C-alpha cells in the first residue's frame, strides 16, 4: 500500500454537507434526528417556522395567553422511544388524569385510572361491563401494538423479523384461547357502535367510546371499521398503562423542548426559519436539499418528517418519482375534521356537576353514540356539525405560565369540522365558533361572559399554520386502507421511498399520528439498520 491509496479528502466543505438532513422539527423529526445523531452521524434539522416543535409549537393567541399548540394532552408517548432518546416527560405524581363525560343532564361519568379502571357516576353493573369491554379491547389492541414499533412488512421482501412479529401476533391472538382469538378476528373491522352496544347500556360511556374511536378520523361510530380508531387509542399508554393519558410536568409546553433536548444532546444541529424549497434528487437518488433562500445543503440521507404529500407534491420534482407512485400519494386521503379552539378566560370555568379537581382532567362532551353519529352526518356533505362533540382541557391548570394570574385557558378539539367546508371557512368559522361557545356555555354556565379572546383553528387554518395538507394531524386518514403496508402508500410504507436516500418519518408514515415519537424513531432505526436488515 502506498500513500496514494489513502482516501481523497471530501471535495465538499463540511459546512454544507451532512450525513443526514431532517426536514421538519416536529416531534417525529426531532426523534429521528436524535436517534440518528446518537449513532455519531452529523445531522441537521431544518425547520421552516421560527421555532421548533411542529404542531406542538406554542404561540401567544391573545395578550398574556399562550397555547401549547395542537395537542393538549399526551396519551401515546412510546416508553421505548422516551427511554432510548432520554425524553423525560412524566405526569405530575398523584392520581391519573381522569376523563369526564358530560351529557348536560345527568351528573358526569368520570373515568379514573387508565381509561376507566374505575368509573364514577354510573351503576356498578355498568362499570363492570365497561371493565370487561375495556379489558377485551386492551388485550386486542395489545396484539396490534407489536406492529407499531417496527416498519411494516414489505410485501415481496418479508424478513425474519417480520415473521417473528407475525408469529408473535398469531400467538397473541390464541394466547387466551380459541374463543378470544375468534372474537378478535370478528371485531377487528367492526364499527365501534355495534361493539359498544354489545357491552354497554350507558349512553355517556358509549358516547365516549364513539368519540375516542373517531377523533381525528373521517368516520362516524357506525361507519365500518371505526373500532380501529379506538384500538389505536388503546395502543397508547401512560405510565405503563394502556389507554392512560397525562399532561407532563410543566404542561404541554414542556413536550417540544424535551424532544429538542434529546436531539441537541445527540449533537444534532437545528436550524429554524430555514424553509426547504426543494429536495435534491437525481436519477432516483436523493442528494440533499435546496433552501427557499437558494442555498444548497448536501447529504446522502434526507429524512422528511413533514406530511408525505408536502414532501412529494411540493418538494420533490415530479419527474423524479413514478407516475403511479405520485398518483397514489395524491390520492392519500388527508382532509381533516377537527377544529382546535383556544379560549382566553378571565377566570376558571365551572362545568356543571364536575368537581373542582376533575377540571384538571379531560372533559368530553358527547351525550351518546347517536350524538357522535349525528355530528358526523353533515361532515359527509361538507358541512360542520350543528351540534358538535368535543374534548376539553384547561391547559393553564397544569402550566400557570399560559395565562395571567387568576385567568385561565381552555383548549378544545371539536369535531366535525370538515376541511372542505362547502360554504367556505371564511363564513363558516364565525358561525361554528358561535355554536361551540353556546355548547360550552350550556355545560359551564357563565363561561361566555369570561371570554377575553377566542381563537378557532379550522383544518384550513391548521393547514396554513403548520404546513399540514388538509389540516389533518395524522398526516392522512388513519383508516384500514391507509395503515401498515399502505401508509402512506405501498411503495413508501417502509420509511424508505422510491427515491434512494429519501425517507419518510412523519405521522403520515407508519404507525400514524399522535405524540408517540414512533414514526421518527422507527424511520431512524430503519436507516441505521441499512444493509443489516
Amino acid at each position, binding site marked *: 500500500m502506498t500513500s496514494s491509496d489513502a482516501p481523497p479528502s471530501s471535495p465538499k466543505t463540511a459546512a454544507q454537507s451532512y450525513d443526514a438532513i431532517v426536514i421538519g422539527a416536529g416531534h417525529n423529526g426531532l426523534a429521528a434526528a436524535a436517534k440518528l445523531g446518537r449513532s455519531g452521524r452529523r445531522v441537521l434539522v431544518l425547520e421552516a417556522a421560527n421555532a421548533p416543535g411542529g404542531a406542538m409549537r406554542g404561540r401567544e393567541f391573545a395578550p398574556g395567553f399562550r397555547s401549547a399548540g395542537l395537542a393538549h394532552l399526551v396519551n401515546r408517548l412510546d416508553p421505548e422511544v422516551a427511554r432510548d432518546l432520554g425524553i423525560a416527560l412524566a405526569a405530575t405524581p398523584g392520581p391519573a388524569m381522569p376523563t369526564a363525560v358530560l351529557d348536560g343532564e345527568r351528573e358526569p361519568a368520570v373515568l379514573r385510572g387508565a381509561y376507566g379502571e374505575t368509573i364514577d357516576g354510573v351503576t356498578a353493573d355498568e362499570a363492570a361491563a365497561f371493565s370487561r369491554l375495556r379489558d377485551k379491547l386492551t388485550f386486542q389492541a395489545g396484539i396490534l401494538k407489536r406492529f407499531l414499533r417496527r416498519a411494516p412488512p414489505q410485501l415481496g421482501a418479508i424478513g425474519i423479523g417480520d415473521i417473528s412479529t407475525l408469529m408473535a401476533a398469531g400467538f397473541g391472538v390464541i394466547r387466551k384461547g380459541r374463543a378470544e382469538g375468534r372474537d378478535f378476528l370478528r371485531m377487528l373491522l367492526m364499527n365501534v357502535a355495534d361493539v359498544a352496544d354489545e357491552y354497554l347500556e350507558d349512553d355517556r360511556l358509549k358516547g365516549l367510546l364513539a368519540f375516542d374511536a373517531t377523533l381525528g378520523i373521517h368516520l362516524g361510530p357506525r361507519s365500518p371499521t371505526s373500532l380501529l380508531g379506538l384500538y389505536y387509542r388503546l395502543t397508547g399508554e401512560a405510565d405503563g398503562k394502556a389507554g392512560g393519558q397525562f399532561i407532563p410536568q410543566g404542561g404541554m409546553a414542556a413536550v417540544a423542548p424535551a424532544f429538542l433536548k434529546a436531539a441537541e444532546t445527540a449533537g444534532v444541529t437545528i436550524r429554524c426559519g430555514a424553509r426547504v424549497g426543494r429536495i435534491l434528487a437525481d*436519477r432516483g437518488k436523493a442528494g440533499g436539499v435546496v433552501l427557499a433562500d437558494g442555498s444548497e445543503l448536501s447529504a446522502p440521507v434526507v429524512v422528511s418528517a413533514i406530511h408525505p404529500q408536502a414532501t412529494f407534491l411540493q418538494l420533490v420534482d415530479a419527474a423524479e418519482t413514478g407516475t403511479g407512485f405520485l398518483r397514489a400519494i395524491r390520492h392519500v386521503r388527508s382532509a381533516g375534521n377537527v377544529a382546535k379552539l383556544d379560549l382566553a378566560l378571565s377566570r376558571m370555568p365551572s362545568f356543571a356537576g364536575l368537581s373542582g379537581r376533575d377540571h384538571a382532567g379531560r372533559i368530553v362532551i358527547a351525550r351518546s353514540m347517536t350524538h357522535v353519529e349525528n355530528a358526523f352526518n353533515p361532515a359527509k356533505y361538507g358541512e360542520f356539525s350543528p351540534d358538535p362533540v368535543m374534548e376539553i382541557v384547561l391547559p393553564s391548570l397544569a402550566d400557570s405560565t399560559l395565562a395571567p394570574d387568576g385567568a385561565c385557558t381552555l383548549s378544545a378539539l371539536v369535531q366535525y369540522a370538515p376541511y372542505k367546508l362547502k360554504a367556505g371557512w371564511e363564513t363558516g368559522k364565525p358561525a361554528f365558533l358561535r355554536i361551540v361557545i353556546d355548547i360550552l356555555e350550556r355545560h359551564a354556565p357563565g363561561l361566555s361572559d369570561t371570554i377575553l379572546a377566542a381563537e378557532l383553528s379550522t383544518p384550513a387554518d391548521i393547514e396554513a399554520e403548520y404546513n399540514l395538507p388538509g389540516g389533518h394531524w395524522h398526516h392522512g386518514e388513519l383508516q384500514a386502507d391507509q395503515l401498515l403496508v399502505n401508509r402512506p402508500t405501498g411503495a413508501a410504507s417502509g420509511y424508505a421511498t422510491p427515491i434512494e436516500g429519501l425517507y419518510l418519518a412523519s405521522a403520515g408514515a407508519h404507525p400514524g399520528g399522535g405524540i408517540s415519537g414512533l414514526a421518527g424513531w422507527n424511520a431512524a432505526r430503519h436507516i441505521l439498520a441499512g444493509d443489516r436488515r
Partner: protein
Amino acid sequence: MNALTKPANAAEARRAARDHIATPRLETPFHPRLSALDAVNDWYNWAGCKAPHALFDEELEYFAIRSTAALFDISPMVKYRIDGPDAERYLNRLTLRDVRKLGVGRVHYTAWCDDDGHVLDDGTLFRLGDQDFRLCCQERHLPWLLDSAFGLAVDIREETEEIAGVALQGPTSYAVLAKAGFSGAERLKPFDIGSFAHDGGTVTVSRTGFTGDLGYELFVPRQAALPLWDRLWTAGADHGIRAIGYAALNRTRIEAGFIVANADFVTAEAALRADRVRLPDEIGLDWLVDPDKPNFNGRRAILDARRNQTLKHVLVGLEIEGNIPAEHAFVYHRGKREAGLVTAAIWSPTAKRNVAIASLDRPYGTRFVDDLWVEIYAMRELKYQKMMKRAKIVPRPFVKLARRTATPPGLR
C-alpha cells in the same frame, strides 16, 4: 386538457353520447377511397375503426410493399399531441429514451413503462418543435399521460380522430412522392420529418414506417385526407401504387423484426394475469433504456431487475426449418422441455426463410440457445398434423434492405 369538448347543455351531451352506437366501427378519413378499392370485404377492428385486413389479395399486397409502392391507412393509430415548456422533461420522465437527444424534425422509436418497469406500450415520438411533440402508439393512454403531467407545465390532447395518417411504403415510394411534387423529400433521412405544402395547408411527412423498407408516413388534418390520397394515387399510377390491408403489412413487419403491442407482448394495463407483464429487457427493448438520462418511470425496477438478474423472459428471432409458419407454436429445448412461445411467424418471401418472433423463458434464449425446437400443429382436413421442427436463434431483422436507409433514395 383532453380532446373532449364541453357540450352546450346536458341534454345535448346525452344525445351526443348516445349517438355513438349508430357507428359501432368508426370510418377513417380515407374510408371512401379504401371501400372503393375493396374487393374482398375483409375488415377488422383497429382501435374502434374499420380497417382492411386485405383489400384484394394479401399476397399481391405484400409484393406491392416489397416491389413497388403501397398505401396503408394508419389513421386509427392513437396519436397524442404534447406541448408546453416542460414537454421535453415530461416525455423524458414518461419514456425510456433520452428525449433531449431527439432533435426538432426527428422521430424516434421508444416505449414507456409503469412504476414497476412493465411496458405500457411502444410507439414513435415525433419532435415537431422545440416544445411540440406527437406520440403515436397502439393503445390508448390518456389517463396515464395526464397523471404523468402532474407538476409539469405541459398540455396533452388526443388527436387520433383529427389527424389522418397514411403510410407510403416500398421501393418506389420516393418516386411517388417526387412525382406528386413533394420537392425536397429526397433530403429526408430515415427518422427525419419534413413539412410540405398541400391543398392550402401542410402535410407532415416523416421517413418512417413499419415495413423495414424505404417508406414514408404522411399526416394531415382530417379534412385534407382525401385530396392527399388522390394526389399520391395519381402520382403513383406509373409506379405500381396499391392500397393494402394489415395482413400484408404484418408480414413485412415480421420480416423487419418489429414487435406489436398485445400481439408479441401483453401491455401492462391490458394484462389480467400477474405474470404476463413484461420489462423492456424481456421483449427486446433493452436498447431503449437509458440509465444515464434523468429519472423515468420504471427506471429503478428495470435496473434492479438487471442487477439482481431477475429478468424472466427474452424475445428472440427464430429461423425454423421447413416452410410451415409456426405461429403460436410451443418452443421446446431438446425437444421436450417447454421453453416459450412463438408470437409471430411467417414464411418470408423476401428472405426465403421460415422466420418467427418468440418469447422464451430465461435461461432459454440466454444461456441455453442451442437445441431448440418448435412444435407446429397444422390443421389438415380436420386433423392436426404435428411437426417438431428445429429452430435456430437468429438476429432480427430477418430482412435488411439497403434502400431503407439510402439517401437520397432511389427512384425505383
